[in-house]
């Protein structure tokens, strides 16, 4: 325990922000930036892929389906290697580890998000699309105003879980020397040499606290959505304010 506190005191900043401001940003900060940027960029791509996956047009359906199946069928580390070795060849200039990892996460996560979004769309009653088209909305307007707002809202918990996966996956950036949390922990381990158990326990705890809290948040959001949906589904009698207040303190 004493060892752990000593390590945290002496090397805490390296774990949190790397060598910043004297060197590059690293540690938990980079893990976080990678995850947030990764999921934020993957999200619009995932929505487009989902729309292509449910499209009746083969030119959209086949490429999107192929991409989704390939990404879901290979380990992430394979994709990292592919991007690492072939992206520089493809664009004709060197690519930083950070950019490589970000590009990998965006492609990989968009495939998973696409399946989440697709499930969200397909879980809505077909009557929603029919009603939107029947009043004269175009397919795109119906998607934007009626289908996606409901589908994405219902899928928020699943997307939060996907964000948790992304955080854990950034640790694989270690193999291409991305300066993230795992890389920082390994650096500390190399400096100390004799304290691997303590160093990697700290590493595990940081990941766990971060991911566990987000998982709890996802569960909380899911319960709220379930409750809201139940209210919308039964809806026979408008609930009194008191009943609503009670419903909100229930777990």
């Amino acid at each position, binding site marked *: 325990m004493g060892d752990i506190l000593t390590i945290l005191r002496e090397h805490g900043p390296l774990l949190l922000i790397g060598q910043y401001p004297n060197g590059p940003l690293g540690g938990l900060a980079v893990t976080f930036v990678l995850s947030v940027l990764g999921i934020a960029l993957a999200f619009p791509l995932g929505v487009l892929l989902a729309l292509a996956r449910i499209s009746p047009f083969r030119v959209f359906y086949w490429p999107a389906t192929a991409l989704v199946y390939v990404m879901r069928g290979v380990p992430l580390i394979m994709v990292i290697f592919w991007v690492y070795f072939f992206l520089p060849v493809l664009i004709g200039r060197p690519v930083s580890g950070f950019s490589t990892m970000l590009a990998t996460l965006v492609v990989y996560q968009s495939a998973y998000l696409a399946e989440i979004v697709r499930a969200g769309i397909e879980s809505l*009653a077909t*009557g*929603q699309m*029919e*009603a*939107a*088209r*029947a*009043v*004269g*909305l*175009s397919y795109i*307007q119906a998607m934007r*105003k*009626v289908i996606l*707002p*409901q589908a994405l*809202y219902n899928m928020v918990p699943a997307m939060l879980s996907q964000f948790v996966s992304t955080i854990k996956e950034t640790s694989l950036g270690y193999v291409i020397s991305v300066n993230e949390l795992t890389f920082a922990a390994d650096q500390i381990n190399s400096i100390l040499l004799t304290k691997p158990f303590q160093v990697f326990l700290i590493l595990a705890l940081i990941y766990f606290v971060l991911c566990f809290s987000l998982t709890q948040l996802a569960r909380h959001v899911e319960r709220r959505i379930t409750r809201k949906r139940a*209210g*919308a*589904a*039964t*809806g*026979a*009698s*408008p*609930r009194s304010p008191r009943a609503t207040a009670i419903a909100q303190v229930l777990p």
Partner: protein
Amino acid sequence: MMNTMITFNGVNKWYGAYHALDDISATVAKGEVVVVCGPSGSGKSTLIRTVNRLEDIQKGSIEFDGQDVNAPSLDLNKFRSHVGFVFQSFNLFPHMSVAENIALAPVNVLKQSKSAARARAVELLERVGLAAKADAYPGQLSGGQQQRVAIARALAMDPPAMLFDEPTSALDPEMVGEVLQVMKSLARDGMTMMCVTHEMGFAREVADRVWFMDHGKLVETGTPDDFFSNPQSDRARKFLSDLRSH
């Protein structure tokens, strides 16, 4: 013809080998209220859904307000915005308030301003007796109220005719009346209506003509008086006696 609203001309539709609509020819005149009835699976809902192209047909033609519904050059979205359609299961948008449900198409299709569309939505809600519910969400309304909102949503586009696909079949019995009241007042105001329904009381009171369908065929048409007191076909007689025995 200037005074026909909907014309079915030799309409045929198949689902695979199943002949869902078998050579339907009939017209709905302007201002007329037509009730389509028949046993379940007879093709009534399919027929009404072909009018705004929720279902395509394979043979024949349909005209709505002078437009060929199946013309390749038809601007489908614009066309549909002129056809009022009310679903059995209401299909309100649960993430929008009642007023937003009604204003959605006027704002996005007719490009009305939000404030104008809302004012009109409130006006329509008054007409269906729900002025106080403008800011409620569909989940907070009863089935009957939801269906009245759905009617207001269709009216917001000022359609020349309204199509009702079993509008009261998903409702608890005590809520059927309020929806039928709204439909009756529409009929009194001269709205052209084509209505698939099992509410024979409504048909007797409001319909100008009753169409009886069975096995995808339009078996007989007549005034409610003729149809109910003197049905021509065996199948219609059997249908009516089955209805009465319940």
